[in-house]
């Protein structure tokens, strides 16, 4: 391999600072890392192997194997690199290499290592909120080898409840309805989602803590109007007309003409003084009413329209009341993952 290729590879390799906020504690391992950074692979290899004979914490041990994996990859010792990366994955199953900063050789060795051991990675429980019985909690994980995978929920008053059992490999998606076998929603509390994979003598399990909370389901507000529909005026002012004046004239005329016609001829001409006074008053009232703004009259069409609208609103409110009654008997479940405290075994 030419020198320029090694430089490029070096640029792509992750530096220790990129591995996380945690720093390497062991001095030998730090020297090994420094040697690797200086492309002194043999020294890095011997120092890395020496560091593994020391008492290392989990993080340092994983970094030591990872350093060996990168070093073996750089030295084209793929099988040894795979063995080293297998140890990394066993120590930190969630460990992933950044494909943009890692050499293809190291990446392929890492992928081969993943297929050769049984681990469950990337167990994720999404935060979700839904009405009990009408939703599910999305859970997903990745299993590296074809195996029998059993998912259980433990904790709280639940005890130990199996929610899924399957033979799978790769990414698996589960939708958990968060209900007890009786159909009731899972009681509030903290639980663990445990995923166990087994094939032959090998087995692996990992867990994710979750919190289940109960809440009241929102009720729907009653309607006072239907969107887009407004009540219409139930009375309308008719246009001005001479009808009051005309009718006043007719009524008064009939009364006076009737008086005159019914009057007995032997008694002389009929007295129209009394009828004239009252009739004149009526004609005057009719004239005034003709000039005045007419009284509002019931608008039958609008009244029927409003009646239909009110019936529709009342019917909808009855449905809303029934829906609210049902909702008050329901539980709003909120499921959220809790921070991880450890990896799998």
């Amino acid at each position, binding site marked *: 391999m030419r020198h320029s290729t090694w430089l490029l590879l070096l640029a792509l390799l992750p530096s220790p600072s990129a591995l996380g906020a945690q720093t390497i504690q062991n001095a030998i391992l730090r020297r090994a890392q420094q040697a690797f950074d200086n492309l002194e692979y043999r020294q890095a290899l011997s120092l890395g192997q020496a560091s593994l004979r020391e008492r290392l914490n989990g993080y340092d041990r994983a970094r030591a194997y990872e350093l060996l994996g990168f070093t073996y990859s750089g030295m084209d010792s793929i099988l040894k690199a795979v063995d080293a990366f297998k140890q990394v994955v066993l120590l930190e199953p969630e460990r992933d290499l950044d494909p943009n900063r890692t050499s293809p050789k190291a990446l392929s060795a890492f992928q081969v290592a993943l297929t050769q051991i049984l681990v469950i990675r990337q167990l994720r429980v999404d935060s979700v909120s839904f009405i009990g019985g009408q939703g599910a909690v999305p859970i997903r994980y990745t299993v590296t080898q074809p195996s029998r995978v059993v998912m259980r929920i433990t904790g709280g008053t639940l005890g130990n409840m199996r929610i899924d059992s399957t033979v799978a490999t790769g990414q698996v998606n589960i939708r958990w309805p968060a209900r007890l076998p009786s159909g009731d929603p899972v009681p509030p509390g903290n639980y663990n989602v445990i995923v166990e994979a087994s094939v032959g003598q090998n087995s692996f399990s990992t867990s994710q803590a979750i919190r289940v909370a109960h809440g009241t389901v929102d009720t729907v507000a009653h309607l006072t109007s239907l969107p887009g529909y407004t009540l219409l005026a139930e009375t309308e002012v008719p246009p001005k007309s001479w009808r009051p004046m005309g009718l006043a004239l007719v009524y008064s005329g009939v009364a006076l003409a009737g008086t005159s016609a019914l009057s*007995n001829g032997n008694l002389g001409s009929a007295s129209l003084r009394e009828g004239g006074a009252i009739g004149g008053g009526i004609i005057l009232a009719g004239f005034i009413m003709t000039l005045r703004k007419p009284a509002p009259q019931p608008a039958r069409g609008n009244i029927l329209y409003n009646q239909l609208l009110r019936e529709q609103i009342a019917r909808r409110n009855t449905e809303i009341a029934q829906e609210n009654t049902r909702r008050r008997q329901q539980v709003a479940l909120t499921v959220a993952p809790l921070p991880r405290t450890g990896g799998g075994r």
Partner: protein
Amino acid sequence: MRAERWNVGTMEWLTVLVAVVLSISPSVQLSAQHVSIGPQVAFGDYREVSSDLHYRGGGIGAKATLEWKKLSADIVLSKVKYKPTDAQNGTSQFNASEVDVRVRYWITGPVSAEVGFLNRKADPEFEAQSVGAITMGARMAYLLGPGVHMSLNGGLLFGAKYSGGGTTSGLGAMQLGLGLIVDALKSRVRVTGDYGFQRFSRKTGDGGAALDAPIQQSLGRIGFAIGF
């Protein structure tokens, strides 16, 4: 003759009594009713037998109205002092006290049917005819505008009895009326105006031949009423 007058008077008072009892009875309290009552000024024209017996006068009156569902009733009392228009023909003035009671039932639209009675007494007794009759007719009412009602009524007067005797054929006595009510202060106060015309084609038996002795009155009343 006296017995006839007594009979009409008894019926009149019985009806007034029933109306009053209905109005004050707790079981039919006024909450479901509209009642108005108030005084009126009356002015009239009275003629009898011939154009020589012609009287005009004025007086006072009172009108009570009761409305309940489709039923309504008017009770009108009036007392008019009639004076002869020509004092030289030997006639003298008299007081005419009239009671007019009508009960109406709304039929459809503006039309109501009405039934009632009227009784008019003349005092002094022999200056004019006292008369009593049963009224049956119809009434048309129309709302001229907000709170302004007018009405036209007409009908026949059956079973007319006269203090001086005499008879009237079935269609010989009739009446015609005109009314105006103007509501004010949310119907608490009503201005009322009424006109009533009555004609009795009375015939008296003088031996074998029947003689015409018609009676005719035009009465106008203007007043106000308090609504309850």
